[in-house]
């Protein structure tokens, strides 16, 4: 075992760790922002909107995330690059980064998975609670904001914790589109030092620690949300 490279790459690894956490947080937040309407329209929305949402979930859950990521990075990226208007725009520094496509692909993907979860979550809230909210004169928007959404979230918090761990384990895919997250740094170490195992074992250990932190965080949140069980 040769760990002499470790001090040299330590700062880079810290940055990679930060980038991984960023990727995870952004994808989960954007994913949930997508998931709430996707889940909701399948229950209360007009039928055509529900059908679109269902189709979206099917596509996101039915194709590998790596294909989605490469489709966006190479496919969409090459389309963007072919328009001079886009290349000269102020957005280009963002649009040419692998980081942007990683967050985009992960969020869209998470939106599909979490959308399906939120659909079940909205269904799991007892009808009577929604009816009594309406009886108090709340508008549909108030019912959603005060009763339906919080109750739905509480019910699926454990599932979302599992989903977050799955997302964490998907983030190293970003390294295939030049993002220097933990895995990207590890790949660079491998390239520069010709070591086979040591960097990979470190990566495994780091991801295990992160998994532990995420599960601990969620169990703490779960403990704080009141529930009668």
């Amino acid at each position, binding site marked *: 075992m040769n760990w002499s490279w470790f001090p040299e790459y330590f700062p880079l690894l810290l940055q990679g760790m930060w980038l991984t956490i960023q990727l995870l947080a952004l994808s989960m937040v954007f994913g949930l922002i997508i998931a709430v309407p996707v889940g909701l329209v399948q229950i209360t929305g007009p039928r055509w909107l529900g059908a679109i949402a269902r189709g979206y979930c099917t596509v996101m859950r*039915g194709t590998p995330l790596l294909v989605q990521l490469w489709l966006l990075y190479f496919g969409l990226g090459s389309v963007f690059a072919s328009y001079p208007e886009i290349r000269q725009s102020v957005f280009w520094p963002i649009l040419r980064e692998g980081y942007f496509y990683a967050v985009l692909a992960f969020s869209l993907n998470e939106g599909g998975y979490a959308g399906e979860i939120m659909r079940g979550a909205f269904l799991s809230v007892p009808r009577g609670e929604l009816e009594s909210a309406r009886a108090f004169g709340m508008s549909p928007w108030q019912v959603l904001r005060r009763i339906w959404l919080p109750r739905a979230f509480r019910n699926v918090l454990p599932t979302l914790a599992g989903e977050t761990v799955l997302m964490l384990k998907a983030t190293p895919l970003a390294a295939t589109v030049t993002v220097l997250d933990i895995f990207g740094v590890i790949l660079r170490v491998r390239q520069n030092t010709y070591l086979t195992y040591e960097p990979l074992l470190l990566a495994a250990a780091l991801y295990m620690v992160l998994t532990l932190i995420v599960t601990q965080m969620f169990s703490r949140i779960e403990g704080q949300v009141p529930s009668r069980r």
Partner: protein
Amino acid sequence: MAAAADLVGGMFPEILSFGEKGFGDELLRGTQYTLLIAACAYLLGVALGLLGAAAKLYGGPISRGIGVLYTSIVRSVPELVLILILYFAGTRGFNTLLGFFGAGPVEVNATLAAIVVLGVVQGAYHTEVFRAAILAVPPGLIEAGRAFGMGRLLIFRRIIGPAMLPNAIPGLSNLWLIVIKDTALVAVVGNVELLSITASAAAFTKKYMLFYLTTALIYLTITLVSGYLISLLERHYRRGQTRLA
């Protein structure tokens, strides 16, 4: 189809056609390899899962410890990292073993390596599915078998096996869909399955959008057809269970 052809620049028919001018046959071969890798890895996963569940449920302290270690490590490390570790460790370990028997190092078949690697990853998830399914079998059934004088193996074959199967099917079908999608990760180390062929075809022709969309569609077709077949299977195996609510 004409609209689709316009969308991708009129190259749709030719570049995806079979034969020398198109990549149709290459993509088809990639799809076959993807299915082959997925199916074999899945079967290996089932075998490892049954072993793992048996170890975790009925094993002594050592085999139980190995089972716990196996499932908790594999399930908390990203598949991509595991695939690289197992791929390099596997090929080197295999060659060390060969060297031990006096044979020279060989190039390990990439397909076989992919199958073993994905199978080992799947096995951990299968272990949990089987463990939960076996735990859900009513103990009365097992006691009844014991009362009839059945041995442990016979009880497993005649009672636990058939009784746990309906419980396991949702988890098993999920894992099948997961393994299909996980084969795409092998593209990072190998060059036989669908996604790696797509990547090289796309880079070669610069038609990124076209090739990745086609491949996404192929994966989607596989998962949709699988989903349909699974629903038939599930109905068959659940026929003995009473419907809840």
